[in-house]
């Protein structure tokens, strides 16, 4: 094979490939200016709330929203790298750091739900009746009962670690403490399978509880509040972000209409709402 024929062959192949890719572009068509990358968490997506809100947003504003549902850690990392335009997350400590380092602007309170401690109906560690969640966790540790952690740096995982810290315990490495590295729904299923305890957001638990067999054993502790904020990624730091779209989305999430939708979401299906709308409130006023 001469070099010349290799060059010709290579060029021909590349032309064919580019042509084939070109055939593909219509599949991906949705003008770049109207694209909005929303980084959020799997648990948020799994509640189904976004399946209602996003289409409504797209219809109203004409934006095409790419909802990338990953763990909280990854969502914020995307924001830090300017690979997302707006974040909808629920990891307050990490969010504060995020704002402090200048990665985000305009952090707005959207809604909250809470976390609940669930476990087997038999409750081997006898945590029912505990006054606070750290107390419940201490009882679980004492009994050496199986505890399933998400272990994936998600908002839920961060919350759980906070409770252990408040209880003065470090469960890492203990045999009864198992980290699944999975999403909330899957972790709940694993806990049900292994008859263990876990910390879950109420929304996901409500969606699954019918077949789960893991009743709520402890809830209501203020620590367990799961607070959602919408944050726009700082366009000064990352000029390529769709700053306008992010602002529109942010405004949308705290608008009265949307807040009403949030407040009634889940009532039909589960009897009680999954979320509590909080736009405009002060953070410490929550949960009371």
């Amino acid at each position, binding site marked *: *094979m001469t070099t010349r*024929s*290799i060059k010709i*062959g*290579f060029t021909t*192949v590349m032309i*064919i*490939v580019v042509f*084939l*890719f070109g*055939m*593909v*572009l219509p*599949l*991906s068509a*949705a003008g*770049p200016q109207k*694209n909005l*990358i929303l980084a959020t968490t*799997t648990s948020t997506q*799994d509640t189904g709330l976004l*399946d209602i809100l996003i289409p409504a947003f797209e219809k109203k504003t004409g934006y095409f929203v*790419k*909802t*990338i*549902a990953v763990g909280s850690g990854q969502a914020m990392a995307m924001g830090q*790298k*300017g*690979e997302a335009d707006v974040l909808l997350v629920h990891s307050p400590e990490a969010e504060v750091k995020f704002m402090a380092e200048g990665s985000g602007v305009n952090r707005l309170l959207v809604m909250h739900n809470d976390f609940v401690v669930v476990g087997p109906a038999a409750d081997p560690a006898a945590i029912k009746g505990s006054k606070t969640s750290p107390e419940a966790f201490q009882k679980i540790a004492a009994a050496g009962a199986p505890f399933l952690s998400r272990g994936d740096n998600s908002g839920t995982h961060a919350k759980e670690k906070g409770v252990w810290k408040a209880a003065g315990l470090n469960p890492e490495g203990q045999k009864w403490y198992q980290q699944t590295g*999975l*999403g909330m*729904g*899957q972790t*709940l*299923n694993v806990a049900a399978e292994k008859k263990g305890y876990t910390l879950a957001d109420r929304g996901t638990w409500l*969606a*699954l509880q019918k*077949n789960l067999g893991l009743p709520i054993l402890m809830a209501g502790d203020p620590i367990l509040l799961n607070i959602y904020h919408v944050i726009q990624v700082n366009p000064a730091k*990352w000029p*390529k*972000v769709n700053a306008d779209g992010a602002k529109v989305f942010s405004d949308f999430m705290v608008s009265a209409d949307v807040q009403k939708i949030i407040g009634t979401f889940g009532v039909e299906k589960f009897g009680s709402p999954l979320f509590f709308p909080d736009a405009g409130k002060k953070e410490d006023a929550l949960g009371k």
Partner: protein
Amino acid sequence: MDLIVEGIKKAFFLIFTLDAEVLGITLLSLKVSGLATLISLVIGISAGTAVALSRFPGRQFVVSLINTGMGLPPVVVGLFVTIFLWRNGPLGFLEILYTPTAIILAQAVIATPIVTGITLAAIQHLPANLRLQILALGATRLQMLWLLVKEARLPLLAAVMAGFGGVISEVGASIMVGGNIKGYSRVLTTATVMETGRGNFDIAIALSVILMLLAFCINAILTHIQQRERPR
């Protein structure tokens, strides 16, 4: 057990009622994996044939690279393609992250070494003098390449099946670069993972059944073509 039966029942229900969302996901899976396989065939068969027929310094190294590429973990491909396609990455200007195009790109990267490696082996396996005999029959270089590829068509069909099979079932890279966006970049595999994560096992099983049926049908057709030609 009942879960699986439930899943299978749900699968047929979704198929027969032509459930819009499932139909959309299935068609997208076919389009994306089909195109990716096609691209990998164009590049793979050309490159494989070229390397098989050439002698150049460092050829053995190139062949080792191809063989290593055959076993490349798809998830690794997904990670690297994502990094390249990031807004601030080298190919960010293309703005194709979180689109079906990105999935096709990642899947093509996964399938191409497979097709190249199998083609390379198939062409090298042809009788050494066949190339000369074809030239002696008065063939142009292009005719010669075409005739050689035709002679190797049985193993090349295996390459098609291997390439397609590898990408229709791929999930890691597809989630990373596609974003699993509803109605846009969601394919059978990524939807299955999501439904499993949500605990909707029946839907997850249904999607898996549909995926396997799809893969089976396509491979059945390709196998029929291949075995029709089998030496008796």
